[in-house]
């Protein structure tokens, strides 16, 4: 069955969803995206329906990544639509290995077909049936990670807004800490560095899964990004804007001292 490709080969959003194609394009453009695979909406649905062949196929495809895995929704009519679907896409960080993908994909399919997803679609005027692809990548173990909007979403000012915390970026995305808040002018000038209250860090477990680690007291209010890293983030923002256009919502992580791009999508109208 067609339906799985390496990310670098993901071209059709109608098959794999815009997140997968976006990440594939980022890899093709030389951006630092961790390698992985794109699974089509059709194969995700087949797995959720219990189709054994589909289940075996996805397990085999993802095996080279080892474990643990980061499994993310890639909804087929997402970006480009007027709403961010923020929160409508599920990210599963605790998938121990490719053998556990079947259950993960089923969860993702239902999340795209849940009551709230439907209400949400109706609210933003989408009346077509949802189709959700999936991106599978090896899970990073970052020192610090978070989110960057290349335009201030509160007042529309032309500056980068960054929120960062220790460990996996989930702590920032899911709002589990009060993150450091930075604002950088596109020239690189740092306009604001406000330490947050980062009491926990989400870390990976060697056998798969994640846990909430208590952050040592001296680090709770210490800035987790230095100026060199801020400059790298500003550079990444520049490159993303050049390739994709203005108003980007970027998820990033510093792991093993290197900056990784985990997600890059359009900031929605209301998000800006």
């Amino acid at each position, binding site marked *: 069955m067609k339906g799985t490709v390496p990310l670098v080969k993901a071209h059709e959003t109608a098959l794999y969803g815009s997140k997968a194609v976006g990440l594939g394009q980022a890899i093709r453009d030389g951006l630092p995206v961790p390698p992985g695979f794109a699974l089509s909406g059709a194969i995700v649905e087949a797995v959720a329906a219990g189709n054994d062949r589909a289940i075996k196929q996805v397990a085999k495809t993802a095996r080279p990544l080892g474990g643990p895995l980061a499994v993310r929704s890639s909804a087929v009519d997402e970006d480009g639509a007027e*709403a*961010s679907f*923020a*929160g*409508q*896409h*599920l990210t599963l960080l605790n998938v121990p290995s490719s053998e556990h993908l079947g259950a993960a994909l089923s969860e993702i399919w239902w*999340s795209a077909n*849940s*009551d*709230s*997803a439907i*209400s*949400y679609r109706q*609210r*933003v*005027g989408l009346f077509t049936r949802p189709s959700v692809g999936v991106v599978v990548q090896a899970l990073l173990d970052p020192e610090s990670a*978070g*989110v*960057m*909007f290349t335009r201030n*979403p*509160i*007042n*529309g*000012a032309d500056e980068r*807004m960054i*929120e960062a915390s220790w460990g996996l970026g989930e702590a*920032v*995305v*899911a*709002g*589990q*800490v*009060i*993150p450091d*808040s930075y604002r950088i002018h596109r020239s690189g000038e740092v306009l604001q560095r406000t330490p*947050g*209250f980062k009491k926990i860090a989400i870390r990976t477990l060697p056998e798969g899964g994640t846990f909430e680690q208590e952050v040592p007291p001296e680090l709770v209010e210490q800035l987790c990004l230095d100026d060199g890293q801020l400059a790298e983030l500003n550079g990444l923002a520049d490159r993303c804007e050049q390739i994709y256009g203005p108003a980007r*919502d970027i998820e990033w992580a510093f792991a093993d001292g290197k900056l990784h791009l985990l997600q890059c999508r359009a900031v*929605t109208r*209301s*998000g800006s």
Partner: protein
Amino acid sequence: MTNADTVAELRFEPPAPGYWERDPVHFPRPMTRYWQEVHPAAFARGTGDFARFYGMLMGSLASAYVHGFGYRSMVPVADEEVPARFERATEVMQGKLWREQLRDWDERVKPESIRAHQAVQSVDPAVLSDQELVEYLTRCRDHHAAMIAQHMRYTASAVVPTGDFLAHVGDWTDVPPAELLGLMRGTAPVSAGASAELERLIAALEADARARELLASGDDPAQVLTELRALDGEAGEAVSGYLDLVGYRLLDGFDISEPYALAMPDALVRAIQIAVAGRDLEGADVEAAVADIRGKVPEQHRAEFDELLGEARLTYRLRDERGVFSDIWASGLMRRAVLEGGRRVAERGLIHEPVHLIDAGFDEMCSLVADGSGPSADELAARATERTTRDPKAAPRSLGDPPPPPPDASGLPPDVARLMRATGIALGHLFGSSEAEHDEEVLRGLAASPGIYEGPARLIAGPSEFDRIVTGDVLVTQSTTEAFNILLPLLGAIVTDSGGLLSHSAIVAREYGIPGVVGTREATGRIGDGVRVRVDGDAGEVTVVE
């Protein structure tokens, strides 16, 4: 003294189906029976007029009284009228039609109202026969009702451009709304009582030594006013002209139970003294404040800032003028007529004090004056006592259904959403000032999603408690995840302990167009489950309002 014992027996039932909210700013105390009879129809008429003029999604506001306390409820516009309203709202915002209303007010409505008040005022009720007094009471009542409707009719034009200004500048800067309202200063002289008549009075007094002596004499204020009026020439005429304009204005509130200015000569004398002592030329201060705030606005928005500020200043004086030249005056005239009736009825031994007639309903007033029939002296005295001693704290802030969730602005045409936001913000800031009388707990966090919403807080630890959420609740929780999305259509606002402006809660709050304050650190620790809170997503503040 409050009759706290009997208060416990009072049951507050919703007056009709729907969501009813108290208005403690305009009606802090129980109202008279007369007011309760006259107000609702006039209020509905006037609010319906402004809603139609502005293309709002509101049909009108209904008012009702429970144990004398005023509650109001919104009557939505009929579905089939919505497209016309959308069109009208766009017309209003694009064409700045509040200017039309302002022009109408200045050129026709205000001068006509003043003439109408003066016509009613020129009758001396003391010389009327009983039958004529009953006719006069009717005339005053009808005039009062028309003026109440008129006051409400101009509400939106007083509020929309100011709210629009607050909304936009609130998006561009972090200047608090109270500070932004200060930029209107100096544009509403009528708030200080100033008018052409006062200007004339000041000039006359400055030129007349004898008048100034009287004013500074410290003698009995009523005597001072009588003597000022009696002065020869310009001074005396100016004083009379001024007193004719302001004399029957209620000094506070709107009900006929409130005194008018002439009954409080010391307040009048003080007002004149202050006016003569020196006009507070705040002009220069205000311009400096404007420049300062303008500097905080990003450059690409400054031209729009100027435009919005201009519109707001143009209409700001309507906020006070629409009351002072409408029902605040007409109510004083009604009171004067009722007091004359009360004087006669008391003289005939039918009531204990003239002022007790204030607590009669309109038909009761007329029949007591006409033929002495109606409620007994004790009955009216009891009503007066109850009304003036009933504890306002007993009246619940709302009755009936839970508040409807705020409309989803993201689905509306942009001008309609802009209009709604302007109205919401303006009403929240211009009329929320009385909240200081309650114990306030203000929690601060990050202003994640704009708008202001008031509703019951619901502390939710996790998905197992989701069934406790009711439509219109304010979600208060540690942080949110995708699992919480199922609640979104039910929520009025979101408040979290942790999380930043780019977190899930912040993003979905903005997505759904509901106010959001994140990163408060201790919302779940400090806000009690079920208490009413106000979430200000522009200021990043959460306030417990009861």
